[in-house]
């Protein structure tokens, strides 16, 4: 009886340990980061529970001010952006090929063929801050999206050459992407229908003269 209870207790303790370890790791990591920030004398890096939320709010405003209205609405409603490929290709090598990218925050850029929905590649790219010796948190979600958008719009070849290329499915489940493409097409249809409804009264007015 005692042996059985002891064995059960050991198993319970082992399971609790397994559960608690990641939590303890996170706490220790946060503590180390705070100490490093204090040592660096950076008062702004001290723990502030609202900092990341405020950063994300600013990032959303910045994103909204930079991208097109349709793109902003897409990100706001769907959580990702679509960017057509070949837009910044100065020598025209890639022009005429209809391909596009999906930009997710802190996930790989996904290239696909809009006509067929076929997924081409995942481009894994990050924007690490190299100015801080102890490393730092990542960009706010919307800043990460904006950085990818600007880089793809401004110099597609450069960012693609920096990224790690993988086949689809490496980090993002292809079923999720297909679902997102379906959501995107539905979103575009609804948006077009709304625009047509808004234009209808104007078109129905009799022409002067």
């Amino acid at each position: 009886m005692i042996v059985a209870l002891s064995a059960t207790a050991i198993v319970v303790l082992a399971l609790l340990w397994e559960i608690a370890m990641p939590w303890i790791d996170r706490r220790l990591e946060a503590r180390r980061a705070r100490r490093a920030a204090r040592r660096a004398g950076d008062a702004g890096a001290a723990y502030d529970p609202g900092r990341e939320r405020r950063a994300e709010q600013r990032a959303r405003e910045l994103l909204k001010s930079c991208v097109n209205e349709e793109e902003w609405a897409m990100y706001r409603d769907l959580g990702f952006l679509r960017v057509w490929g070949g837009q910044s290709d100065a020598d025209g090598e890639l022009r005429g090929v209809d391909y596009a990218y999906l930009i997710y925050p802190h996930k790989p850029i996904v290239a696909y063929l809009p006509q067929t929905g076929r997924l081409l590649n995942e481009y894994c790219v990050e924007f690490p801050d190299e100015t801080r010796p102890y490393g730092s948190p990542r960009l706010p979600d919307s800043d990460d999206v904006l950085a990818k958008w600007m880089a793809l719009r401004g110099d597609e070849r450069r960012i693609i050459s920096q990224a790690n290329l993988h086949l689809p499915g490496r980090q993002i489940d292809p079923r999720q992407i297909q679902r997102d493409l379906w959501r995107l097409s539905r979103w575009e249809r609804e948006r077009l229908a709304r625009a047509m409804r808004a234009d209808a009264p104007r078109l129905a007015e009799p022409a002067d003269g």
Partner: protein
Amino acid sequence: MRPGFGEQLIAEGDVDVVEEEQALIEEFRRQLDQGMWAAVPITRADGRREAEMVRAFEEIPRDTGRVIFFPRAAGGAA
């Protein structure tokens, strides 16, 4: 854009004022030396919004309102 903080104003000035332009040039170079990329949001004649990556201060359109710096891209999750 700064990881963990988001958008922060680094410098501002009028490029038509020599001293202020010089300060902007120095800050621009300092950011690039730190490994940042620089982009300029632009609006085309047809209203489309785009972005241009710039590698030198001279590449920045004179009438632009802002230059956005963000950490240089690197391959992730290899």
